[in-house]
């Protein structure tokens, strides 16, 4: 009997607490805890923004040199395989997609835009054998659930330090040594435009066999197989390097903007919470005063 009674009492008590939470009536302590945590988060996002800004400045400086390099590396492919307006060439069956992302998140939509683009291509594959080389953990994580079987190579440990030519060489070697005779390769990366904008773009790379079939190659002088092979292998590394640089710069700039937004939002929350905190404190004081006064009046 007694137990039953206490049971109902407890039930009433819990429902009361629930009702309180639903009304958003937090105690002083609750508010101060939340306030503190939001302040800490703001500190973190602010310092992340500073770090990203410093890294971005360096990345952008590096990009100037790398861009001339990348555009130069592309020139041969543009010349040998000119894009003709209005004519869509038949897509070869065996393709490789090289995704350039990094291991680190908290940088807006740079990685997901690459993953999105890739999903788009894979969705429209229709009998083609398209394999994915995911550079950076974010690309792998984004694709592994739906297109896990398309991923044939992954690479990580990228994004901590600025990409170097050595990194690109490792990636290029991995593609060439993978034993997959692709007919067309595409590098998907984020091309840096301004601090607040980037564009998800593609660079086409042709393997040795595909270059040999191009008519334009006949106009080139003294091309033997050895030279051509070294050249294509080398230019793959060059193009990957260029794409990595562009992606890294986009990532840092995007992280800067994202963290700036996060700091601003945190600031807004801090303002609101401080107001609520002060109001509640005042209410508590007033209530105590009333209690004391009315108590005194009764005596």
């Amino acid at each position, binding site marked *: 009997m007694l137990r039953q009674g206490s049971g109902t009492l407890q039930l009433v008590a819990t429902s009361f607490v629930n009702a309180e939470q639903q009304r958003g009536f937090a105690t002083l302590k609750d508010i101060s805890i939340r306030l503190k945590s939001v302040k800490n988060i703001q500190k973190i996002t602010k310092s992340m923004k500073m770090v990203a800004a410093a890294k971005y400045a360096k990345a952008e400086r590096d990009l100037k040199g790398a861009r001339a*390099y990348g555009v130069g590396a592309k020139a041969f492919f543009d010349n040998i395989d000119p894009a003709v307006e209005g004519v869509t060439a038949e897509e070869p069956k065996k393709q490789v997609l090289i995704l350039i992302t990094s291991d680190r998140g908290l940088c807006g939509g740079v990685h997901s835009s690459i993953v999105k683009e890739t999903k788009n291509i894979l969705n429209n594959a229709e009998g083609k054998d398209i394999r994915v080389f995911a550079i950076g953990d974010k690309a792998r994580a984004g694709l592994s659930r739906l297109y896990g079987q398309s991923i044939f190579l992954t690479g990580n440990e990228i994004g901590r330090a600025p990409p170097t030519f050595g990194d690109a060489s490792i990636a290029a070697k991995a593609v060439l040594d993978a034993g997959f005779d692709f007919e067309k390769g595409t590098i998907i990366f984020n091309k840096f435009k301004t601090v607040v904008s980037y564009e998800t773009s593609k660079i086409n790379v042709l393997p040795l066999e595909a270059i040999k079939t191009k008519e334009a190659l006949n106009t080139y002088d003294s*091309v033997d197989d050895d030279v051509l092979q070294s*050249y294509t292998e080398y230019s793959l590394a060059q193009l990957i390097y260029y794409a990595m640089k562009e992606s890294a710069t986009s990532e840092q700039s995007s992280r800067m903007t994202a963290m700036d937004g996060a700091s601003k939002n945190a600031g807004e929350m801090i303002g609101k919470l401080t107001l609520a905190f002060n109001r509640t404190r005042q209410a508590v004081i007033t209530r105590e005063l009333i209690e004391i006064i009315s108590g005194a009046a009764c005596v």
Partner: protein
Amino acid sequence: MLARTVQRFAAGVSRRGYAAAAAQAKNANPEELRLTFASPDTALFSNAVVKQVDVPTLAGVVGVLANHVPTIGVLKPGVVQVTDNEGGVQRVFVSSGTLSVNIDGSCQVLAEEVLKIEDIDETAARNELEAAQKASGEGSEVAKAEAQIRVEVAEALLKAATNQH
């Protein structure tokens, strides 16, 4: 490894690109030689009009003038010599990379490492050569081949430094 090796010779010398000074020329005039000469981190020439470029490739030194027949090549360690329209000559050491002269008349020299001749530290190059020669005799096949490349680069560096090319 190679990149690091070459970088060490430029001890204490700050590197500066000429991209800012190079004139931009976007018009595709086939009578001009438009040169892009870059390393992964600096662009020495970015689509700039020059008179002549001499490039050491695996097939021998190639001299490129305007209207050169399209070609591609792979660089070997040596000195790239650029003559601008005023006749001024710049000599730059390259470790490896690619050369392409295209149908549209543009020329790209893309090196893995570049170093101005004045910046080569001769003693460091000599030490490197000795170390590489020592390393080329031992280890696995791959290590031997890598050491062989180091020897080639160091030899070319020394050659470039002492100006007997």
